[in-house]
């Protein structure tokens, strides 16, 4: 018996394995939608508790993942209402980002991804961070595979252009400064 089928029957260990398998992806999706880490944590907890409670009503265990993401989507909406949405970064100050001080390109990338529309942000993070295929993302977001591919490609192009514009600007400033020094 696979884990969703076992969890439907009340196997808590199977449910724990499902959590370990999908919690990160759900969390990434929630964070992308909500824009705030603590909100994503609350919604993640609510999602898995609701999933456990309602699993007996899931008739098709093979549809567990899209079902889980639909619960997550509803919990994200509930959470967004409880706390007003704001434009904030996905990584809080108390979680050290990996060497961003030495990697301005990473810091710039985070700012650019934060600037994406929530749904696009979710697609980008599930694909680039979680390594999900376009088919898997399409299934949980109820989009066509072509739409996911198109949005992802467009978003990557936007990120690339944004990144290069940012560093071109900085290079340009540096060049001008050095010119002045030379002068």
């Amino acid at each position, binding site marked *: 018996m696979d884990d969703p089928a076992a969890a439907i029957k009340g196997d808590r260990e199977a449910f724990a394995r499902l959590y370990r398998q999908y*919690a*990160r992806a759900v969390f990434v999706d929630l964070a992308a939608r909500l824009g705030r880490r603590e909100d994503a944590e609350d919604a993640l907890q609510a999602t898995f508790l609701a999933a456990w*409670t*309602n699993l007996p009503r*899931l008739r098709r265990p093979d549809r567990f993942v899209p079902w889980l993401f639909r619960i997550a989507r509803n919990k994200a909406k509930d959470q967004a209402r409880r706390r007003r*949405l704001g434009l904030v970064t996905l990584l809080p100050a108390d979680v050290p980002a990996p060497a961003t001080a030495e990697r301005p390109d990473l810091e710039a990338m985070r700012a650019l991804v934060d600037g994406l529309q929530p749904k696009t942000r979710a697609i980008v*993070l599930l694909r680039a961070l979680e390594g999900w295929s376009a088919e898997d993302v399409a299934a949980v977001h109820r989009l066509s595979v072509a739409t996911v591919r198109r949005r992802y490609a467009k978003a990557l192009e936007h990120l690339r252009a944004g990144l290069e514009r940012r560093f071109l600007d900085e290079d340009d400033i540096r060049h001008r400064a050095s010119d002045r020094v030379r002068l």
Partner: protein
Amino acid sequence: MRTTSDIELLIASAFSGLEPPVAVEEAIRDGLPAERARPPVRGRPVRAVALVALLAAGAVLVARGRRTEELADEPGVPVALVDFQGTEPGDGWSMNNAHLIEGEDPARGRVLTIDAKGKGRIRRGSPVADWGPYGAVSIFVKVEGNEAVEMRFLAFSGRAALVRRFTLKPGGWRELVLPLKDFRDDTGERVCGFSRIEAFALQWDKGEGAITIDDPRLLPGSARPTAADRLALAFPKGGRSHESEHFVVMSDVKALDLAKVAARLEAGLKVLGDRYGVAGNFEDKAPLYVFRDRKARDDFVERIGEHFAVSIGQPKADGFTVLGMATAFYDAKQGANRPVFVHEAMHAAIHRLLGIASNGNWVQEGLASAVQMQVDPKSRAGAETKKPPWEKLFASETLPSSAYVDAASIFDFLAEQHAAKLPAVWEALRGGKGALHTEGAALIAGALGTDAASLEAEWRAWK
């Protein structure tokens, strides 16, 4: 120039710290409740014996009966009709006599305010086609202004719509829940079910003022009334039901053999399919209510009008079918063999199979009469068509009962002379524009590759 892989790598590195904390896993593990949702009951819908038990046991068991209807493959979670937090709330709507204002509400986030007057309407495509696995439409609403607003919610499929009317009083945020079981057909001749909904709309009927909405969604459940729901509305003092494959027969007449009635209805349906080519799946079982007398039936029709917030004229005939529900009353001499039972049940079947309302139009009356006379040749009582001119036959929206045999004759002619093209005929009638009494003949002729005058001449020459 960075490659796509470079960008993906940068994203992965930038967000590598995005992990759910261990504390969440611990909180979930420790907080899993022992109480869980009840699994759906599999198998066929509630049977008659169970229904009697349900009714006897009262409301709690009726609620269980409803639960058995939640048999959809859809997971039992709500689905957004418009995701206000993920999109611009005002995008994608078409409007008549209404203005949309997007806004932010301190309590609810992104919301949409609609300023409209009587007959104003906003309409939007539905993200979900099959509403069958859902039990209700839910919308959070806030009403500014000084007067109550009478409105309706519509769900569209092709040229048909299902509708529910409601009144909103001025006031702050509240959840408006409209059970799909309480929706009815719109007043047009074309009707639909909940299995292929293309769009939905909010319409202002009376009153004006700004209404702010949020989070329109479908709640899990079932759009189809159960036999218990139907019995409760028709026979509040107690009734029996018998379900066959396509019909549910209900009555409070002890002497009536419900199984025998149902068997005759199934026989009629077979004729409708085999001879006239009207076949397919029902979204729900077609109900036939048999009351003890005319008054009890007429009282029920009045209650239907109140329940569905629609004005229904007093029935004039022994049989009466409205909103896909067939009604008649008992006659001790004829018992289960009463021909009107088959006639009315065929109206309910044609409603479901052809998407044509039973409002006395010639297609409904002609087909139902044709089937009735096949099942009960004696009910013809010697009546033969004199083949009146179609111009006279189709002079009004409602076919007079004296002309049923004429309209039935047209369908017998089609069955015997154009059987191969009957599916095209039914599709033309289902999807065609215009009223059936003015356009029906032309639609049929078009499907047969001819014109109405030629078809009428062919009918006259037949037999």
